[in-house]
């Protein structure tokens, strides 16, 4: 994307060029992005994606913020979510007034123990890190998306950059994981080689089918 998007007229194939023609226009486009991003996005990032000047995006962000806080409703009723800017990044959160209800919902059905599926996925990540979800999925033979999310949420694994080849996110274990397992370092994990003859060529096998 171009940096000069805010100055020059946009070429037809730029995002933003036809934003006006989409239902809801640039404002809805901004909402779409804000609704699904996990990490807070800066106004510059948002402006780049939308192909709009940063100042315009900032205005839209403030408008949305007011809208969610009640400005969008005839009687000033706020929405159940709010748009907040934290450390320079924007993200939508549940409104703090409802924290009790939200935490009740989250704690419902939460267990303090990891499921067998989560443990196995964690084991694969521990021994293959840094590793992509697709790879773990191939090794485990099932989709691991939600389990990986749980492990991240539990602080046992974390983002370790992207795979230069596939562009997929890589995961590695955290120091909290080491702490729980009672070791100081990943190299202290028991060696697997004796149980796993031919582990070396496993890589070729799993990857071929993804």
């Amino acid at each position: 994307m171009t940096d000069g998007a805010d100055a020059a007229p946009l070429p037809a194939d730029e995002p933003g060029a036809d934003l006006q023609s989409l239902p809801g226009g640039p404002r809805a486009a901004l909402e779409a992005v804000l609704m699904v991003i996990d990490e807070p996005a800066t106004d510059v990032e948002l402006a780049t994606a939308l192909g709009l000047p940063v100042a315009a995006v900032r205005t839209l962000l403030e408008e949305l913020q007011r809208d969610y806080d009640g400005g969008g409703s005839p009687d000033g009723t706020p929405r159940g979510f709010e748009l907040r800017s934290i450390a320079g990044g924007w993200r939508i959160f549940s409104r703090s007034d409802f924290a009790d209800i939200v935490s009740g919902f989250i704690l419902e059905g939460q267990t303090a123990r990891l499921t067998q599926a989560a443990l196995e996925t964690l084991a694969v990540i521990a021994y293959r890190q840094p590793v992509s979800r697709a790879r773990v999925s191939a090794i485990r033979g099932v989709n691991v998306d939600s389990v990986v999310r749980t492990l991240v949420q539990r602080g046992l694994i974390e983002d370790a950059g992207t795979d230069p080849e596939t562009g997929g996110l890589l995961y590695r274990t955290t120091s909290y994981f080491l702490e729980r397992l009672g070791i100081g370092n990943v190299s202290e994990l028991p060696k697997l080689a004796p149980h796993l003859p031919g582990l070396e060529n496993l890589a070729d096998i799993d990857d071929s089918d993804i």
Partner: protein
Amino acid sequence: MTDAGPAAEAPAEPQAEGRPGFEVRLDNFTGPFDLLLGLISKHEMDITEVALARVTDEFISYTRRLRESGQDWALDEASEFLVIAATLLDLKAARLLPTGEVEDDEDIALLEARDLLFARLLQYKAFKQIAALMGRRLEEEAARYPRQVSLEPQFAALLPELIWRTSLADFAKLAAKALEPKAPKPTEVGLAHLHAPAVSVKEQAAIIAERLQDGGPLSFGALTADAADTTVVVARFLALLEMFRDAVIAFDQASPLGDLTVRWTGPERDWSTERLSEEYDDVPVPAAVPGDGPEPAEAGEEGAG
């Protein structure tokens, strides 16, 4: 969709990606392969009028062109083509048989086999169409991204402290188990290929040798006149090729496309099938040669019974 029928729909269907797909050029038809199938299945075109050999030749050069242009989906289309072509071939064989009047159980069986082939073909086409619909749907849905953000810090802090009871050794065992190369999961023992008893090429070679040594030159027709089914004919044909390679027989053909006569040129009595190559030892000839034809045989049995 229903009223349009397969023929009308076919042109839009072939490749979801909008690739042109395979076109057939025959004397009596030019157009997409799927349209040809549609016409045949709607009985608007007689399968006996379709030169399958030419369709096949065209398909081969089509896939060659694809491969040369670096398109990797040729294999996919090729395997599909094989299925359909094999079914069409069976269908054509069934069609070429007289159907004017139904005289005995065998005729009924043939008719039923033919209907089954149509059914199979249409079912195949139906799933292809559904798959295209599904593909479009998946693509449309992929344009919507679900909100699945990580837990807000204030809520994450509320999660109960994780109870961890897995020892280091158990954890390693789990990893070893998860990383172990998986043995393929059990699948059914395929029975489809067992419909006909296996026919040994060597046994058939012994029969041929005996007849030729005893009765002088015989035509291929005569050598296979008593064959119970196609499998035996094929096995005898393969046996002849083997024996020719072993230089114990010779072929004579008076005129092009004339009868093929086989005569014994080998030693009088001490030739044995043991001398034939090992190639067919453990490879009994499968029941149906042109691909996957167990269904007609199955249907035949049912019809007769």
